[in-house]
């Protein structure tokens, strides 16, 4: 009886428990599975993800819009965490399905990949639900360590190893920065719980000495966050890691972690340090501008698709920050929900686009051939008209052309920025996104206007064909009816 109540009180961690148990079980089962029957592990992982999704939906259904703190304020469960977790499961699941054939062809579909993926997911979920510096950092490190290992999965490849090394060193540095910033804020406020930090900063921020102390910590926190999000000038690891990692792992890095990075940005800045909004908004403005400029302009010069998409990520994260920095205007939080909701909508749409784009690269790769140069897309519309169309939708969505979801994402954040009075930033953003349109157009040009270098249709797993098509069409569907996803994001932010 007593146990039942304890269990019931801890219901919100059900999905985390499922992932943890599933990942551990998988590790054991995988030992007994021969490499020919590795698919078993693959299906177990899918089962775990489905169970998690069911668990999260159940938690949401039981708890409704209430915000629950568990484990003495280490863990929070609210609508935003549930929405972002569901999006993370979906993107991890898609990553798993998209990479299956690719990994099989390269002999990389090992238990390690699947197990690490699940543990990385656990880390992301902890980040998304973090209510204190401690749990936030633990989740972050769990995720990062799994991703470091995944980048080096193909251990014979010098490029992958180099990428993993860079990722590890820079990741450790950024974690250090974040930790240092957190320790400063902890020193000033005397608490690790974010709600407590928010309460004491509102008193401390009034005095100049304490404020300076807090802002000092804030600088490091923002720098650490910028590293994790991949905003310029802390973006150096992104192109190398995206390029060096096996494409399947690039797909993983480029999708779900963006959601959790967004979540910790919200938790730290919006939940934890709202009193310093004026300071961090200015910092984010600079990061946003630099990211959009560096990302879009450098992407033009890339001939490698993975690098190009890496720079495109940087630019998109800059755009996302535009929403994040438009919440508080002169101490007034009236339009804050709109702005953060817009940023959340942006990041979810971006993840859908990123999954589709890297999924397409996986789809076009086959045993002994990596699709990673721009020229590999040449004449795709001749070889596979349907997937050329899907890729075109993805590219126009990334460029933010209607009628695709990317357009509304752009409109939502621009509208937030303009209503917050950041008109010069909005103008800069649209001009830089014009620069960005060029390299997305170049891909459409390669696919449609040029003749293919090799003939023949593109083979592909039916499962993957179906999901990749659905992925592209989803962007078109959200481009015509963005209302449901938008509302979901805004509700999630309102209940924050």
């Amino acid at each position: 009886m007593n146990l039942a109540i304890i269990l019931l009180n801890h219901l919100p961690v059900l999905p985390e428990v499922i992932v943890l148990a599933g990942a551990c079980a998988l590790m054991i089962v995988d030992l007994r599975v021969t490499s020919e029957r590795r698919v078993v592990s693959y299906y177990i992982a899918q089962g775990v993800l489905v169970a998690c999704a069911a668990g999260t939906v159940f938690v949401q259904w039981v708890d409704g819009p209430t915000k629950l703190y568990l484990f003495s304020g280490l863990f929070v469960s609210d609508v935003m965490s549930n929405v972002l977790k569901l999006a993370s499961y979906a993107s991890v699941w898609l990553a798993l399905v998209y990479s299956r054939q690719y990994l099989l062809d390269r002999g990389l579909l090992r238990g390690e990949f699947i197990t690490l993926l699940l543990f990385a997911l656990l880390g992301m979920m902890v980040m998304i639900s973090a209510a204190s510096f401690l749990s936030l950092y633990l989740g972050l490190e769990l995720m990062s360590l799994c991703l470091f290992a995944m980048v080096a999965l193909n251990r014979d490849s010098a490029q992958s190893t180099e990428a993993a090394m860079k990722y590890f060193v820079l990741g450790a540095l950024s974690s250090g920065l974040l930790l240092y910033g957190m320790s400063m804020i902890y020193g000033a406020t005397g608490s690790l719980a974010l709600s407590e930090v928010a309460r004491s900063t509102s008193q401390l921020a009034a005095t100049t000495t304490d404020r300076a102390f807090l802002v000092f910590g804030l600088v490091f926190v923002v720098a650490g966050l910028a590293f994790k999000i991949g905003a310029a000038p802390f973006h150096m690891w992104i192109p190398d890691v995206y390029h060096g990692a096996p494409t399947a792992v690039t797909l993983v890095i480029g999708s779900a972690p963006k959601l959790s990075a967004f979540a910790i940005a919200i938790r730290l800045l919006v939940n934890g340090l709202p009193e310093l909004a004026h300071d961090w908004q200015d910092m984010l403005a600079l990061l946003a501008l630099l990211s959009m400029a560096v990302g879009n302009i450098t992407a033009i010069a890339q001939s490698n698709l993975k690098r190009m998409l890496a720079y495109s990520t940087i630019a998109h994260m800059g755009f996302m920050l535009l929403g994040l920095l438009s919440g508080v205007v002169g101490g007034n939080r009236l339009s804050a929900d709109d702005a953060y909701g817009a940023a959340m909508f942006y990041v979810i749409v971006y993840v859908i686009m990123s999954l589709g784009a890297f999924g397409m690269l996986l789809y076009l790769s086959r045993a002994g051939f990596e699709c990673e140069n721009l020229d590999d897309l040449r004449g795709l519309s001749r070889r596979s008209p349907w997937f050329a169309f899907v890729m075109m939708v993805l590219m126009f969505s990334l460029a933010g052309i209607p009628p695709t979801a990317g357009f509304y994402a752009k409109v939502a954040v621009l509208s937030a920025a303009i209503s917050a009075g950041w008109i010069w930033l909005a103008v800069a953003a649209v001009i830089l996104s014009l620069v960005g349109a060029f390299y997305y157009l170049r891909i459409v040009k390669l696919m449609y206007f040029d003749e293919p270098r090799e003939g023949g249709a593109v083979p592909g797993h039916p499962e993957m064909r179906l999901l990749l098509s659905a992925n592209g069409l989803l962007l078109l569907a959200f481009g015509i009816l963005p209302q449901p996803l938008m509302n979901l994001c805004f509700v999630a932010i309102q209940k924050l």
Partner: protein
Amino acid sequence: MALPYLSLAVWLPIAAGLAVLAAGGEGNARAQRWIALAGALAGFLVTLPLYTEFDLKNPGFQFIELTPWIERFNINYHLGVDGISVLFVLLNSFVTVLVVIAGWSVIESRVSQYYAAFLVMSGMLNGVFAALDAALFYVFFESTLIPMFIIIGVWGGPNRVYAAVKFFLYTLMGSLLMLVAMLYLYNKSGGSFEIVDWHRLPLPLPAQGLLFFGFLFAFAVKVPMWPVHTWLPDAHTEAPTGGSVVLAAILLKLGAYGFVRFTLPILPDACRQLAWLMIALSLVAIAYIGLVTLVQTDMKRLIAYSSVSHMGFVTLGFFIFNAYGIEGGLVQMISHGFVSAALFLCIGVMYDRMHTRLLADYGGVVNTMPRFAALMMLFAMANSGLPATSGFVGEFMVIMGAMQQSFWLAFIAATTLVLGAAYTLWMYKRVIFGPVANQHVAALQDLNPREVIVLGALAIAVLAMGVYPVAFTEVMHASVDELLRHIAVPKI
């Protein structure tokens, strides 16, 4: 009003386009052509009631359809037409039918994609003219870039990639700045994307000035006005015939339409302040581009430059703020839609046979293609503004309007009558008359029935508009008067 004609005008062609795609494959091109023609005809037929059932006395919007679309941003699926926009919906649907017929035997590769692109674009263009919600307008406005980009890039000439990318980026730059302007207005109006709400929104002069330039970039690139016209000759030259036709007849009108729908009524004070700038740019387009047109050696490029010059007349008409000017500008837009479409089709007819567009390769075509020469004569005359053709009406009205402002304005504007006649008739003379230039010309076949239908339909339209322009202007009167009354009231 029984059926949602405007929605049908938007979605029927798009549905037909998707049907053509679904019928895919290179094998059954014949079926695809017929589906495309059926879709285009159906699209045209549903727009006819817009004209027959149009209430001439009502200056406001008619055939209104209003459904909430994205409630979070207060965006509505709001369609409606007034005297200013209704004719463009008709023009667009009419031209689409001609384009489908004109591409019948010319396009042999990727037939389904070609027709799908045109039909989808036709639906979107109807959407641009019918949208009463600015966000909806923008979605349609920018979406049209995608099919046009594909049309130029896939079926275009040798330098098509450059032309397609230039076209896309130029227009995108303009529309992105317009997006910022629109979001600013959305904010200022307290969260409304309704164009009519913006018409009533009071705005201080500095804000109006900035917004004016935001919109100006978008519309000036589309019109195109000097000096942002350079994408047009490239796009026209490289596009396939059908692409050039739609580009000249419809896409250029989007910019001019934007001036009447957004810039003039939303920012009347800025417009009055900056009218000198617009008039100056228009006169440069008329006179300078007219001279540039004279020296072109490529026929398509020549007609493209002539389009810039003719569109200069339209913007001139809009910014002299009287009924003659605005109505003349609108008439000129429609007339130019017919005439430029016809001239590009004429060039297409010759290009399909000779595979060259250079004037130097032609001469004496009349000897082998007499029927063609006769029809082209009519269109050349219309392009130079001969009375009793549609080209005369608009130019005459704009010059009348300009005369009310100042004599010298009218004088410079009237140079177009000289220059227009010079470049069009000189081109005509070099191509059609004289001795037969070479054995390719000697081997030319006269028009086939399909080409006669297309050019004949346009010839009837050009003559009808020239002889009885009232059929077109009476539709506009009420709305144009209302617009002028609206502009006259300062809203600072």
